[in-house]
């Protein structure tokens, strides 16, 4: 059993088999840096719980090999990412920090789907991004995009 401690002090006990899904943790264990409790300073308890839920599910499902199980897992993944945007982004950052490739792929792909087919204005609104182009700069990029690269 490995114990992880979130940034806000919550602790989570997980099997080694699950812990090694988090590559960052795996490296720490291999390097012998893992003490009795492994601190995860960048990730809150709420998010760490979700990450662990994902990893547990995927470790369990890894044992089943039938197509039906694989389809079920896809469905589970689709539900897993049905969270509010803030949570989704926090999970991405956690997956990136903890180096969990499959979770990073899943969440990044979800964000990519939110972007596809949208105009720049819509994208800015969805992600609350400030447009720091001047009108002239933006015009020039748009022109180059449309005239040269479409």
């Amino acid at each position, binding site marked *: 059993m490995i114990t992880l401690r979130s940034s806000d002090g919550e602790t989570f006990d997980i099997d080694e088999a699950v812990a090694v899904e988090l590559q960052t943790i795996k490296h720490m264990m291999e390097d012998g840096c893992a003490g009795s409790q492994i601190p995860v300073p960048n990730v809150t308890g709420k998010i760490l719980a979700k990450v662990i839920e994902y990893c547990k599910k995927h470790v369990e499902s890894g044992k089943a090999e039938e197509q039906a199980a694989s389809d079920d897992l896809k469905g589970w993944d689709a539900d897993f990412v049905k969270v509010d945007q803030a949570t989704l982004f926090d999970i991405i950052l956690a997956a990136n920090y903890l180096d969990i490739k499959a979770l990073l792929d899943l969440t990044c792909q979800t964000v990519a789907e939110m972007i596809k087919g949208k105009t720049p204005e819509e994208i800015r609104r969805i992600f609350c*991004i400030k447009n720091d182009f001047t009108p002239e700069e933006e015009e020039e990029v748009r022109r180059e995009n449309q005239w040269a690269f479409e």
Partner: protein
Amino acid sequence: MAYSFPEEVLEHVFSFIHTDKDRNAISVVCKSWYEVERWSRRRVFVGNCYAVSPGIVIRRFPELRSVALKGKPHFADFNLVPEGWGGNVFPWIATMTRAYPMLEELRLKRMVVTDESLELISRSFKNFKVLVLFSCEGFSTDGLAAIAANCRNLRELDLRESEVDDLSGHWLTHFPDSCTSLVSLNISCLGSEVSFSALERLVGRCPNLRTLRLNRAVPLERLPNLLHRAPQLVELGTGAYTAEPRPEVFSSLEGAFANCKELKSLSGFWDVVPDYLPSIYSICSGITSLNLSYATIQSPDLVKLVTQCPNLQRLWVLDYIEDSGLEALAAHCKDLQELRVFPSEPYGAEPNVALTEQGLVSVSEGCPKLHSVLYFCRQMTNAALVSIAKNRPNMTRFRLCILEPETPDYQTMEPLDVGFGAIVEHCKELRRLSLSGLLTDRMFDYIGTHAKKLEMLSVAFAGDSDLGLHHVLSGCESLRKLEIRDCPWGDKALLANAAKLETMRSLWMSSCSVSYGACKLLGQKMPRLNVEVIDERGPPDSRPESCLVEKLYIYRSVAGPRLDMPSFVRTMDEDSELRLS
């Protein structure tokens, strides 16, 4: 709340976003997204090679792996663009050898490609995988030998419809024995015989070969051996499909085809002998694409073949199919999406086949998924066009080529305005339209009013006055490419709609009524347009402003006037301005 992801996360998100439109949208969101996007873009499509320069492309996108370029305007296919006009790919290759050593794919259309370019490609890009030369020219089989010899990981070599200086078929032997990576090989445009044993060995050692389009010189007797070495083929172009009728050749062919259970697309069939057609019947039920545009067989044989293919989605065929054949097609091929009917004798004075407007009407009635049509014929009526329009409101591409210019409705002798008007009115998703027959300005009023999604329009020998051009330019909101020949359209409409030209990729006008004066004015008024006058009669300076230009090609560009114009092409511009690319 604003989230700023670390760059590597943003890059990871962008790695799932592929279309040009989406990549372009991301790049405009904010400065940091622009930066991450441009470093992570791997493929570009440049619809007009002169709309941008190689220097601009490599500065904006430092890590491309796949580049697609288009050169000459479409009317080059009808020999309207003089030899030496431009579209040479060499400057692009030279720039990319320095900037993109890891380039993997190059797709070129209507460009001039020299052997020097091909040799440079073969030596400079260690991981080069895909070369598509669509309607290109300027190279010989020596250049192909370099590609074969040096591109160790070549997956695709596609020379479709290119004009190659075919010195010998020997180039194919330059593929080393270690080459096993080919997925697609299209040499259908080549004239001379390639070494058959080299071809057989090549095909045999490439287990992932999916597409093989042979040239005419590969005799029918050689086909079974090739097929046995590549039973996994999905797309096959045969060579000449002719031989003395011999049962052992037939059964050998039949057996070889029966073994190719993945075949979906067939083409080739030069000189086809009808007796040999049944050799492919066993795989016809799986065929979705059939290109018989070189098959000079008559209607009964065509019908027998086509009715064996119930899953046909695309058919290209000569007008030997006649109305009766098209009726049979309509009855049997309910999944048909695309039909192209080519003329067997386009220059003959009299019709040589019984193909009329009725054939197209039948197909439009019987094939609910039909949305793409290219149809050559000699007669048409408004009534037929109206039927077609009402039958197929899902039409997206409609190109009708009535062979004789200015042909009216043969029953009423009226112009075909009403018929084509019905097409644009009912087919709300129409993206491409080619017109022919007798057409007045009224037709173009219909187009401007209804064709809101139209992106490409081709017009020849039509219209009465500038009003026609004005309707098109002012009404067609989605217009990207407009090509016009032999129409009485000129200065007034062009100058009144100058701003529109910056919203389009290009405008081609030849044998119309545009004057030099208007071109100069347009060039001065719209400095971001390249207004190129093509005039093979000599320098235009001495001529009066009112003199009409022969050919005009106008396109928007972020690179300024091009620097490689031949003497017969002049940019109408503020002469003294130097632009940096």
